[in-house]
């Protein structure tokens, strides 16, 4: 057991690859789910609103780790065989859809109700008003918090190790288990995370500034 080698670094990069794949899955699937949750949360139907709210509360109220575990092994228990990637993607989708749904609902709500009224007063349907008038405006406000959430999501993919994913954090743990040099190994892992997340953070903030400037 000697020092940190290039092979170790490749192993970490490989882990980073999985981290990115999982994050993209979570983002894409979560965006679809989150859109549905957002629609549910602003729906005119009370039962739909309540269902969406209950979903959000449930998912936001339990750790992702436990959700992963219950989905991966839980589906196994009831006899549904899912590959780890599917289970992890499913759990991340549930998780991110709850958060994205809430973020987007906030953005839609922050578009003044009068915009809805103006559209409806011209005879447009609710759906047309949403698509043509509300969403394009909400999308602008929603970009910074969505990117901000994505940064957190990338780091949370580390929890997928419980279902056997060798993503970046787990790869670092495995290496540390043979090298016992936590500062070095985790330091490098932290740098890799930083290299991915920081540009996103910067981008998110420049977007925020641009949008704020537009509003003043």
């Amino acid at each position, binding site marked *: 057991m000697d020092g940190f080698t290039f092979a170790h670094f490749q192993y970490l990069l490989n882990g980073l690859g999985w981290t990115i794949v999982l994050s993209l899955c979570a983002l894409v699937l979560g965006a679809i789910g989150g859109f549905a949750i957002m629609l549910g949360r602003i729906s005119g139907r009370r039962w739909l609103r309540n269902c969406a709210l209950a979903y959000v509360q449930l998912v936001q109220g339990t750790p992702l780790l436990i959700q992963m575990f219950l989905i991966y092994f839980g589906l196994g228990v009831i006899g549904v065989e899912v590959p780890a990637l599917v289970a992890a993607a499913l759990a991340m989708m549930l998780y991110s859809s709850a958060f994205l749904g809430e973020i987007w609902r906030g953005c839609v709500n922050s578009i003044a109700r009068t*915009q809805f009224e103006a559209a*409806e007063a011209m005879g*447009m349907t609710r759906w047309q008003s949403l698509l*043509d*008038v509300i969403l394009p*405006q909400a999308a602008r406000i929603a970009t910074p918090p969505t990117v901000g959430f994505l940064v957190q999501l990338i780091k949370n993919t580390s929890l997928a190790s419980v279902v056997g994913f060798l993503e970046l954090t787990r790869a670092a743990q495995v290496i540390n288990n043979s090298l016992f040099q936590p500062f070095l190994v985790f330091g490098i892992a932290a740098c890799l995370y930083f290299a991915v997340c920081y540009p996103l953070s910067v981008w998110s903030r420049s977007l925020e500034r641009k949008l704020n400037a537009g509003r003043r």
Partner: protein
Amino acid sequence: MPAAVKLENVVKRYGALEVLKGVSFDIQPGEVVALIGASGSGKSTALRCINRLERIQQGRIEVCGREVSDEAIDLRALRQEVGMVFQSYNLFPHMTVGQNVMLALRRVKKIARPEAAEIARRVLTQVGLGEKYDSYPEQLSGGQQQRVAIARSLAMQPRVMLFDEVTSALDPKLTGEVLRVMEDLARGGMTMVVVTHEMAFARRAANRVIFMHQGNVHESGDASILSDPATPELRDFLEHDL
């Protein structure tokens, strides 16, 4: 000929607060009616009930022969008859002036793009904004925005227009321009209900004045009631007019 707008004993409550307490009035086709009254007397609420942005608790509202208070009313059809210009314009900030005007033409009336664009240009020219077609709302002054809002409603060729304080915060010159547009419309036979707090404007624009007081129609008549009010409330309201 049926009334263009008819309210019968309309009651509107927000929770415990009764905002309209049994309002009745008729507006004939082609009439221009000014709705005046103190702040909080229910003028905006009355307009909003007329095009069913609010539901009423009692009474009836009829617009161009349609029963507005009917639960099963076809809202889209109603709103093609009734245009509304909001106090705060409510333009869509992410669309150009042209797109603002075209939107409902294309989505509601399903008019093809080139034709809709042509209509948009025409009504914008009518309100003196032909050259602002490609500007965004925030690039316009207040008065220009207000006129875009008017054009946006006009493009749909409604039979009734509801104006909510369209000249607040405009300087005299811009107020004059809006007034001119409305006079054109009146000549074209459009029915209009105008909420305003500028008495000079009411006097000039309206055939008839309705004075609201604490959720009721308190006095109404032609513009002469503004110089010769019958009730002490209207007299008190006007007293401070400069």
